[in-house]
């Protein structure tokens, strides 16, 4: 979620504009001048979209060199709507990201699932994996310095496919805070707060549904 304030100039003529675009192509274009930024060198970007049927045009400039990219757009897919409503939230925790970074980096990837337990009682907040070598549990006490907010009403244990959550570690690495919320169905909402070099804030949101193979009886 990038707010308009992040951009120096922001002009959109329609209420909302949606299109689908190849992500790796977009990334290659945005990093056309390389990924490591030299001290003093900055890349300027201008994005233009004329409307349906036109490509997304990127103008990038660094050190007097200009690159123009025209990326063809595609029909947008249906966006998955998890219907995650703030009013349905059962449990909510806000943690400082540095507390989770090491945990996520060391997650046992031989485990198919990441189990998240949130509770008003012990263990409060627990991450568990069940891999080839055995099970691993990581507990965060509610009075930990890393815990910014703790609002758990009911004990919930949910499992999520670890392959679906692993990509979120990139957002975790860049963020300063993360909010973890679950609703009555066990749907997970992860919101990462990222502060960029100018001090502006943007959010990355992940929604994940619980692994359906696990029945209540097993938990």
């Amino acid at each position, binding site marked *: 979620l990038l707010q308009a304030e992040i951009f120096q100039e922001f002009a959109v003529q329609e209420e909302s504009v949606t299109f689908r675009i190849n992500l790796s192509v977009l990334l290659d274009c945005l990093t056309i001048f390389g990924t490591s930024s030299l001290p003093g060198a900055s890349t300027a970007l201008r994005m233009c979209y004329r409307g349906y049927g036109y490509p997304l045009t990127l103008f990038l400039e660094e050190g*007097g*060199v200009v*690159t123009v990219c025209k990326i063809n757009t595609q029909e947008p897919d249906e966006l998955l709507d998890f219907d995650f409503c703030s009013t349905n939230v059962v449990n909510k925790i806000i943690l400082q990201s540095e507390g989770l970074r090491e945990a996520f980096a060391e997650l046992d990837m031989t485990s198919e699932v990441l189990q998240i337990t949130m509770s008003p009682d012990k263990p409060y907040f627990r991450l568990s994996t069940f891999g080839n070598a055995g099970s691993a549990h990581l507990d965060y006490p509610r009075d930990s310095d890393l815990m910014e907010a703790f609002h758990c009403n009911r004990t919930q244990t949910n499992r999520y496919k670890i392959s679906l959550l692993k990509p979120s570690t990139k957002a975790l690495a860049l963020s300063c805070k993360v909010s973890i919320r679950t609703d009555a169905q066990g749907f997970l909402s992860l919101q990462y707060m990222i502060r960029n070099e100018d001090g502006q804030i943007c959010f990355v949101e992940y929604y994940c549904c619980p692994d359906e193979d696990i029945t209540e009886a097993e938990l």
Partner: protein
Amino acid sequence: GNVFDEFQMEGVASEHNEIYLELVPENLSRALKTAQSAKAVKIKLTNKHCPCLRVSVELPSLSSSSRIVTHDIPVGLIPRRLWNDFREPSVPDFDVSIYLPVLKTMKSVVERMKNLSNSIVIEANLSGEMNLKIETDLVSVTTHFKDLGNPPWASEDGCQSSAEGRDLESMAEARIDIKKLQQLLAGQQVNPTKALCNIVSKRIVHFILLHEDVSLQYFIPALA
């Protein structure tokens, strides 16, 4: 001769004072890797059991006697009747000659473009402008370089040296294999003193990189 402290060579014959050798580059590169912190390196062509390049590397050591590491690299001697196959291509009658942009920028751009396309178009004109272009079904990317400067070529025929009557803005272009260009750029570890390229429209791109007294030339043919 400035690269070497000592240089002795006797060719095949007095009128053909050259020796043509063929070797596996990986072998020589591995031998030279040990020479990175060497006090001295000596290379000799020997013929004990078979022709070899003997690379002797004198390495620093804590004791008074120095350590010497020797690599024998097998080489093939190319007979004189085949020497014509290896003639250095002459500088082609190019349409445009232009100095290359900062290699670091060119390297970054070409590396990204390599992810998007198999071929790349290099175009340049006599007004110091060069464009690198790729175009596929998914995307088209063009990078524009300006104020690069064109080398002054003094030539026997009047055509190349005089720009009169030639459209300074018209572009000479060639489409080449992007991997070959990326390999050329990736191989540059040190900034050359001078780097330029000559383009023969739709035929060939000739790169010349000068490092002090050493020149590296690459000829990349245009794709059909």
